[in-house]
């Protein structure tokens, strides 16, 4: 049982590191695109910072950050699948 809790604990720590770095990466990609969009075609009456911040607020409520929860779901599903396949005849 100790080994099981060790696996769960270190698994969760590892997945959380992946989840956090992916969130930062994904947000960084969106911010870069917003900045480039503004530089290519500046919106009249809106500063660059305002444009980027509005875009980032929309990003935060969009579907993509929520999809990152799959970082937890997929490995756990694969884990369950492996346990099932290995232990059935």
């Amino acid at each position: 049982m100790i080994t099981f809790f060790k696996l769960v604990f270190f698994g969760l720590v590892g997945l959380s590191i992946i989840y956090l770095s992916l969130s930062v990466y994904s947000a960084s990609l969106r911010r870069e695109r917003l900045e480039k969009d503004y530089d290519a075609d500046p919106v009249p009456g809106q500063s660059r910072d305002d444009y980027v911040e509005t875009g980032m607020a929309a990003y935060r409520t969009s579907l993509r950050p929520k999809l990152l929860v799959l970082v937890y779901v997929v490995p756990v599903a694969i884990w369950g699948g492996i346990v099932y396949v290995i232990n059935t005849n």
Partner: protein
Amino acid sequence: MRILAFLLRLMPILAVGVVLHYVLPQHDIVRIVNTYQERQDLNDWTRIFWSDPSPQSATLVNRDVQFIQAVRKETFLLGFIPRDTTEVMVYRNEDTGWGWPFYFKFDTASLQTEADDLRSTPESPKWAVVTHYGWRNGYLSAFPNAIAIRPVSSPDETIIPWFNIAFFVIVIFLIGMVRAMWFQFRERMIDPAMDAAGDRLDIAQANMDARRSKMRRWFDSWKPKDRR
């Protein structure tokens, strides 16, 4: 020096390769000859070639282990490269539990029963595919651990190593992902910080130059005109 640098760079790749060769599932086409159970001493460093099915087994000095004796017909390097053999192979049959390597195997007793069921003679052979990990080494008494056995109709069965294909695809994807994340991090965080630091350094240097030239002019004013 060049050779030394090359060897130093080769070593981590080799180490990872050796670990993967030990841990990833491989397949053999075999005929099961017999199964047996034997008490094993576990109190020296060759302990690493045996499993820890449960935390209490880690402290045991010896323990009964089940074995499967087989004649190997064909073997596959990581499931990709087939080689013909006619050697014998003995597999150990141990739980891996929740620990390393992560096979989550708990069905040792069932596997032993399946192996018993598949026993056959050279005259009327029954062929089976054994999935296993680990190495056989007679000098160290190391045995590969059998993970699964399934009967096949002929010894020339084609085996597709689905797990290893998926594993290497995922590893390559993850390496690409980490690379992309690192480049993004460098472009967005490190480069601007370095630029800012570089700018500050440039300004500091320009200030220093200006000050020095002022000082130089003052010094020069003390020198005779032809030595300025």
